[in-house]
């Protein structure tokens, strides 16, 4: 066989469980390390430019990750392109900022309002476009995304949104006293050689709040991922994929196309709203300039970079759209590149080029690329009834090279 994996693990065996749990443990440890390492001081030197990766930026990335997760549901699994995720992102952000600042709600209580509100709003604007086959959802949502900044700056809404100045809100998310954050930081600081990367001394109260918010939002994101992954692996999830792959045959098998399409768009919008809560809880301000159509298109970039139709792709996409434009705009000099090109909108340029190049080179995104690599090392095979290891059948070889591309790039 052309590419025999180094290890073969039978599904459901102790090895597979160990493999799974070691992966989860390593990921959690990584999160812990990164939260403390980049708390305040951590900076990354990339091509001669210092660039700060701080915990607040990571929390912002979580906000984007949840929004892209929503896009994965509607674009990745249902095949309906939405260019208006920024609209729901903004709605969630403003709604929660208003509830917390003016009505003293707690951040997580706003979920109870934001999620249903964005869900229903998404359904209402989604129904007309989703009844019809084609790119209509993209057209409608592009318009929505473009009107959002002027919508929140309307005279009538000024008392609630504070117009162009942005809605400020102070965070009430304080690290609880029982949590030994200082102790954890001290342990990390004692690690030989690496200890210097974790700052020195106790965390200030601001720093421990940041770490606390980061972990709270990680938990929220994990819950969102779990819910979405349960959905896509269940009966409605299969219906969504059937619609993506062939609308006509899905209709013929008795699926209610517009119902499923609208529900998935509503769910995507609700997740956009959740992302908005995370964003404003971290940043402390919702301002109209943050919710232009640019952010909606960045979400599409995140979707494509990570891989359309893969949940873990949302994580990679969120990190890319958080860090790449920021890095580009904080970089003022690079060797070879003329200065004029760096002082302009370099971030959007990189994102645009990335979008085009990835569609050519890696249509399945980063996740599809790493899956291919991983398949060369470890392969998990299903257990056969008599307990033997099933014969490994290379799906790629059976179906030809195009198979993977078709699975990864659904048609609209």
């Amino acid at each position, binding site marked *: 066989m052309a590419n025999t994996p180094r290890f073969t693990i039978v599904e459901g065996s102790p090895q597979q469980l160990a493999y799974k749990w070691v992966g989860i443990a390593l990921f959690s440890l990584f999160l812990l390390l990164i939260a403390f390492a980049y708390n305040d001081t951590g900076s990354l030197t990339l091509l001669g430019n210092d660039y700060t990766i701080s915990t607040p930026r990571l929390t912002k990335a979580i906000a984007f990750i949840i929004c892209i997760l929503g896009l994965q549901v509607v674009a990745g699994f249902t095949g309906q392109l939405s260019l208006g995720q920024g609209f729901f992102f903004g709605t969630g952000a403003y709604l929660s900022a208003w509830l917390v600042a003016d009505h003293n709600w707690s951040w997580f209580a706003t979920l109870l309002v934001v999620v249903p509100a964005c869900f229903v709003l998404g359904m209402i604007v989604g129904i007309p476009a989703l009844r019809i086959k084609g790119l209509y959802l993209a057209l409608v949502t592009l318009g929505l995304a473009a*009107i959002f900044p002027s919508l929140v700056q309307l005279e009538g809404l000024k008392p609630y949104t504070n117009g162009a100045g942005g809605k400020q809100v102070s965070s009430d998310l304080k690290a609880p006293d029982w949590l030994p954050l200082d102790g954890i930081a001290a342990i990390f600081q004692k690690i030989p050689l690496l200890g210097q990367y974790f700052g020195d001394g106790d965390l200030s109260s601001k720093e421990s709040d940041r770490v606390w918010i980061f972990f709270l939002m990680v938990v929220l994101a994990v819950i969102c991922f779990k819910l979405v992954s349960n959905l896509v692996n269940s009966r409605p999830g299969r219906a969504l994929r059937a619609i993506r792959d062939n609308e006509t045959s899905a209709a013929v098998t008795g699926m209610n196309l517009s119902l499923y399409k609208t529900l998935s768009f509503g769910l995507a919008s609700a997740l956009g709203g959740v992302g908005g809560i995370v964003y404003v809880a971290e940043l402390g301000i919702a301002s109209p300039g943050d919710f232009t159509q640019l952010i909606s298109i960045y979400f599409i970039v995140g979707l494509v970079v990570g891989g359309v139709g893969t949940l873990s792709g949302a994580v990679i996409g969120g990190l890319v759209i958080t860090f790449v434009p920021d890095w580009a705009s904080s970089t003022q000099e690079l060797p070879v590149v003329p200065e004029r090109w760096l002082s302009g909108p370099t971030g959007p340029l990189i994102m645009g080029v990335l979008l085009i190049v990835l569609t050519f080179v890696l249509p399945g995104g980063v996740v599809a690329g790493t899956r291919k690599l991983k398949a060369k090392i470890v392969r998990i095979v299903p257990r056969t009834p008599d307990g033997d290891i099933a014969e490994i059948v290379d799906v790629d070889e059976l179906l030809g090279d195009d198979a993977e591309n078709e699975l990864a790039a659904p048609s609209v």
Partner: protein
Amino acid sequence: MDLFLNRVFDGLSNGATYALIALALVMIFKATTLINFAQGEFAMIGAFIVLVLATERGVPMWIAVILAMIIAGLGAAGIERTLIRPFDPADHLPLVIITLGLFLAINAIAGIVWRFDPRRFPELFPSGNALTIGSATLTWYTVGVVCTTLITASLLTLLLNKTKIGLAFRAVSSNLESSELVGVRVGPTLQFGWAIAAAVGALGAAVFVANPVLQLEPTIMIRVLIFAVSAAALGGLDSLWGAIIGGVAIGMVQSIVVPYTPIPNELALATAVIVLLLVLIFKPAGLLGTAAVERV
């Protein structure tokens, strides 16, 4: 009454420019049922080329416009050949993503090259008023824009109905696979569609920013694109004359309906979205478009 007439004239000049961008969108939609989200940015680059040629090289205005149309057309043909043709025209997602990438990249490049400060655009039509009714004035600009749009749509109709390449284009837009079977070279025909669309778009952007109250800057076409999308959907996404009617209708809604209703002025763009939603609810095929009928 005079105020009303003034608003009608405003609506005409805005609507006629939306119609030109909508025409460009329709050209590409007709052939491949794809919406080119970078159409507005192509057009914006065209307007900048006109500005550079006219102010820095001293080329006469209309010759500069024609040169810009040719350059935009060639550029779009090149983009079609390198970035669009490698993909299956029936699979929309990668193509739409490419056009979104073009949207970001072209806008950023324009921002880097020309910066974001607004620039005065030289006059394309004589200044002054063609007609004065009471205190309502019809400017030569409005007359010029409406004539430009009508002439462009007529020339496009002639091109599609009387020339060989037009026949090929109509064949491809009617049925891509069958036309390939009878020997139409599909690739170059679609490339021709992209080139024509970009040229019409460049003309549209040039006449749009030639409006004495507007200035040229890299972000100006984003709003126009949304109005144009709505206009194209209202007219029927595959109908050239539908795009004209849709454009004028959207322009009228913006300048007549908005002032007489409590809709605030800043939300003029929202009317485009509302019209689009109404079209999708009541007449998805648009006014002059062909209804999609699918054989299972």
